């Protein structure tokens, strides 16, 4: 990965780095990715991907209302709140 790619991925992940950190991140990631290239040696042409360790299907709940956390309860942890709302710096200009 070059510098530009690392920056692109950082933007996707909403992370930012100083120049030094960026360099270290690129170095670390490249070492790991080089190691992961090991997987290219495995022939997986006829193999199905495995998303789960167990393979159950159709785990449902019924459509029955049940109490959930009130805004009062979960907003206890919010770094900024106003009434029943959380908030962020205004993100759409009108």
């Amino acid at each position: 990965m070059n510098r530009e790619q690392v920056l692109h991925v950082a933007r996707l992940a909403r992370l930012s780095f100083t120049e030094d950190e960026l360099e270290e991140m690129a170095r670390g990631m490249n070492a790991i990715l080089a190691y992961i290239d090991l997987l290219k040696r495995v022939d997986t042409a006829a193999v199905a991907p495995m998303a789960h360790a167990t393979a159950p299907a159709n785990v449902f709940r019924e459509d029955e209302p049940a109490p959930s956390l009130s805004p009062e309860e979960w907003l206890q942890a919010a770094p900024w709140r106003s009434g029943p709302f959380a908030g962020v710096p205004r993100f759409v200009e009108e």
Partner: protein
Amino acid sequence: MRLLGSIDRLASELARKEYSAVELVEEALDRVERLDGTLRAFITVLPETALAQAAAVDRARSRGDRLSPLAGIPMALKDNLCTRGIPTTCGSRMLDGYRPPYSATVWRRLEAAGAVLVGKTNLDEFAMGSSTENSAFFPTRNPWDPKRVPGGSSGGSAAAVAAGEVVYALGSDTGGSIRQPASFTGVVGLKPTYGRVSRYGLIAFASSLDQVGPLARTVRDSATVLHAISGHDPLDSTSAAVPVPDWAARLDGEVRGIKIGVPLEYFGTGVDPEVARLVRQAVDLLVGMGAEAAECSLPHTEYAVATYYVLAPAEASSNLARYDGVRYGWRAPGAKSLTELYTLSRQQGFGREVKRRIMLGTYALSAGYYEAYYLKSQKVRSLIRQDFDRAFERFDVLAMPTSPEVAFRHGERASDPLRMYMADALTIPVNLAGLPGISLPCGFSRGLPVGLQLVGRPFEEETLLRVAHAYEVATPEWRQAVPPGIAAGRGDDA
């Protein structure tokens, strides 16, 4: 020293009212007070709530209530398990001071059984690490040698049990995070079959791999705790609706006719010859007790670490997207725009290793790379599982080392992530395959504990525990050893 005893023994002593639950937890709090300045196993110690819980158990006992064997037993939770109203940091600045509005299902079950929560234990930030050095707060030391790491990421839980600060603790295991620290600190660590234990309220790292399990002093204790936390949970779609046997009651020390497979790949390059020797010796002992053993092969083992370091970071990159400074957790002050709020909060809230894995995972899922990395790894994961399926056609359990080496020194691997990742090379395949695995002490190399890892068929914890228990009973010397510097007094149950 009561706290180095087993749950079994303490439960019967409590039942006979030789001492009260309050006295027991006072002893635990006293040990934490004396030992934890050096060990640093705990992020949060909870004297008031622990004493209140113990007092409630004593009252229930004097009323004549029927009590669980876990009632009044001092224990600890890894700090990535949510506890309602009690700080849950995940070892991260991001969640410093966070008090969850709900409790993990495992804690709700233990709480209902009368467990006494002494505190929340240290871990690698978001459970990402193998040494507990990645905690945002401080590293935890290994009771056997303070210059060495206790393993990770459940290093705090392992150290607390090994030092007798608590009788047992819960950890979480995504790539070895229960078993490897158990091995490094000379305790028993059990990773249940994926789906055996609810993940609700376990702060997610890699959802398809994470599993909660006990770290305890004996196999029987592990079985008792596993029984208390197992079972289907309507709040976790991946928790399995399978019967939960009373494992502890079925432990009889018998291994005759059990077929043990010894996978050669787990004894090869990178494995300390002394570790390998001790594990083979353990297998020989079991054979001497009537088990049968033969070598076998799990040919895709060498690809497990690479597979894991695609899949786990990919899931983590998504699971950790919720830490954005909006609803809980760290919020960077002074952010003027939304993008600034996100990036600054995440930049300041996450440590280096967490960022590295988020970056890796984001990359592996991004347009143009998904097939080469993520999909490819999912396919290799199938092959790794198939290796195990084939082996279990011939064997009841597989035996191998838990970790290639004994506990390493602090700082030794911190600057080389790839080398750190290799510490989990022998535990990762078990998570990828979703199987139950247990690590238990099988000797010492240069004065440091070595772990024997046993792996079983899905949901056959019973066989796993039976073999582990039989071995444990036959080798009381490993349990009677106490870390130097930890006050004398030993568990003498069998």
